[in-house]
């Protein structure tokens, strides 16, 4: 009788997402960034996401083009790999003419290089392995109609447009036609348009989606680490394992000082994610979405998630945290859910002696 079994235990976790916060760089740094990313592609999941967060596109275009070239080279050699390239940038233009200029000079240029993957997808009757997802940070003076024109044009060339909305442009969510054309909306809970803040808010949004999906699909969702990710700051070359590490400025390495991707990944597997406060990170995020212009249904699901986190804190003996989560949950949940949340809240108050 031979042996048999699963392969899962033999395979190290792959990186699912890399966020690169772009900045003005000299050519030497771009070379090193490009080399690092090219090396990291081999450690990325079969289907993965690369986020390039730029301030403005004209300034970052050389970096985006260079990284796109690296991605294409990797995908050509590895037919089993799929990559979604999200490039985040402000669109300061407010008129159709100005937006059209963006399309002609930037998007078309990036799209042209990826046509071979559209053709490959068509021949194999499958979604292309390389998808471009522009994430537009609109100007607060922009008219929805102008954006709709841009989004339609992007979709027409198989680019899936997303929006990043900070508080100054929340009014855009009122436009149903615009929202219907948007692949995904990311929210910023402040007015900051700094790439680092945008990257953090996008990470938050993805992590919230992940937690909500787990809450739906798992009988007993115990929050573990987020999907394996890396955050790289192009400004100083620091690489971080997750948002918690980024916020606390606890970098793994400096990619401009260390040339070895293998060494970076060894550090990642050995140290990166073992000391993180994953429950704290996941539990902190839903609150920041409470007053965003999202649907009532989504708010209620966030309410359920907060209640779940409250229970986890209670189980861990931290009733102060638990009460905080229940209180937040109560504000977001439906009337039908209020009974059992109030019960838990009462229990929490009793335990901390405030009743």
């Amino acid at each position, binding site marked *: 009788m031979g042996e048999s079994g699963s392969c899962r235990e033999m395979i190290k976790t792959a990186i699912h997402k890399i966020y690169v916060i772009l900045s003005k760089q000299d050519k030497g740094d771009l070379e090193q960034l490009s080399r690092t990313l090219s090396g990291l592609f081999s*450690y990325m999941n*079969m289907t993965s996401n690369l986020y390039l967060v730029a301030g403005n596109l004209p300034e970052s275009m050389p970096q985006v083009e260079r990284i796109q070239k690296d991605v294409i080279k990797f995908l050509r050699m590895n037919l089993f*790999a799929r990559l979604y390239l999200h490039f985040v940038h402000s669109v300061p233009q407010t008129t159709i003419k100005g937006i059209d200029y963006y399309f002609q000079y930037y998007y078309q240029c990036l799209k042209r290089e990826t046509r071979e993957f559209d053709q490959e997808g068509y021949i194999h009757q499958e979604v292309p392995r390389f998808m471009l997802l522009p994430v537009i940070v609109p100007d607060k003076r922009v008219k929805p109609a102008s954006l709709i024109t841009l989004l339609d044009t992007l979709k027409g060339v198989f680019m899936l447009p997303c929006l990043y909305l900070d508080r100054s442009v929340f009014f855009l969510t009122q436009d149903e036609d615009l929202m219907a054309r948007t692949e995904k909306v990311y929210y910023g809970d402040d007015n900051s348009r700094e790439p680092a803040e945008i990257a953090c808010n996008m990470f938050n949004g993805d992590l919230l989606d992940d937690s909500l999906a787990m809450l739906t699909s798992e009988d007993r969702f115990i929050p573990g680490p987020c999907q394996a990710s890396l955050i790289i700051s192009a400004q100083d070359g620091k690489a971080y394992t997750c948002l918690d590490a980024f916020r606390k400025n606890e970098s793994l390495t400096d990619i401009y000082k260390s040339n070895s991707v293998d060494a970076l990944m060894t550090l990642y597997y050995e140290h990166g994610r073992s000391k993180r406060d994953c429950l704290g990170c996941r539990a902190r995020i839903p609150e920041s979405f409470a007053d965003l212009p999202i649907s009532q249904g989504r708010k209620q699901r966030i309410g359920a998630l907060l209640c779940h986190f409250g229970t986890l804190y209670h189980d861990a003996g931290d009733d102060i945290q638990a009460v905080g989560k229940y209180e937040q949950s109560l504000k977001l949940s439906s009337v039908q859910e209020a009974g059992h949340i109030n019960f838990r809240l009462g229990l929490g108050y009793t335990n901390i002696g405030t009743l």
Partner: protein
Amino acid sequence: MNVLLIEINPFASATTPISLGYIAAYLKSNGFGVKILAVGEDMSLSCSGFHELINSFKPALVGLTAYQRTMLYVRGFARLIKSIDNNIKIIIGGPQATFMPSSGFAELADIDYICRSSGEVTVLCVAQAIKNGAPFSNLSGVSYKDSDGAVYDTPELEGFTDLDQYPSAYLNDVFDYSRMREAIMLTSRGCPHHCLYCYTPLAFNHKITFHSVDRVIDEIKWIRGKGVRRLWFADPNISFKPERMIELLDRILSENLELEMWMQTRADLVTKELMKKMKQAGVSVIAYGLESASEQVLTRLGKHLAIEKVVQAIKMAQQQEIEVELFTIFGLPYETFDDAVKTLEFVKKNKVKIMGNTNSQQMQIYFGTHLTGHYKDYNIRPLNTDRPAYISIGSQYETEYMRTSELHKIQNMWRAHSLDGGKRIVS
């Protein structure tokens, strides 16, 4: 000697690769070391991770399940495997492989064999040839390529007609249960019918073969022991033998197995008594193949099913509060746009929720279907004649009555009525 078996579906969560499980169990019982890699969207697998797996497990043979939509990935994995160790032999099997033309095989540079017969006996035959140091000698059930790329076909290899002769994938413990939420069962194989859009009848020579009820119950008990209570029966016609079906359900009830089950069968193979028993035993969803609600289309598909039978079968299930799913297809031969709309209206009228498997899909013309060899007879016009020979017509066609615009229109109508955005579970 080790064999690695891989199933790839990057578009959905990995399910229990039951067919690979059977092959693994058969190889294992013949002394080979086997591992199964089920790659779904929820699997974390990088190029580097795969490299490590190959270097540590050191398979001499890798088998890949091939579907039309995963051919790129099959090619990609094959190329990576060969780049790691060019001595590793690669075999592909499954729906896309069985009837793939030799010209298609010739285009697949890194693939050494195509499995043409029953997977268990064929892969064992290849594994033994490799183990004996003569990988292309005394083979049956496969096509293979020599070092110059010339393709050779070998004689067909008969599988067992009594399925119990195949070692059980479950009882031989070849799966990882740590993430298994639903086990896939295969209590019978094949289909005796002649539906002209379907691959299964030809792949099994229009025969249907069975496991004994005892074997199925033993497997279910094993699975329950692993903490899994949801079962998905992949048999195309599980109630083909009504008395066997009743016996199986009775045993599930008498053994108190407490299951939640999904089953599919023909609408003319159910009765009120059977449906009642199904409900008692834990069948929560039953799926029927309707294909088209247009009488003039359905009668010409070779399915030999009256629409009235489907209506009755839906009612029987609904009376027992069993959820109904209907498999439907648009873009069928002879089907007009109005016929296609009639199918959508039928589903709505009979109060079947449009979601999951009830989301309709365009007919796919795959290798092995009657239509692949005879599409011209049905006035079907392929849209892309430049495709690689390892890719079949699939959904890239128009018919005499439905142009691309109408096919898109009916697809969008289904999506507009869908409760879940139109994602089908079984494709």
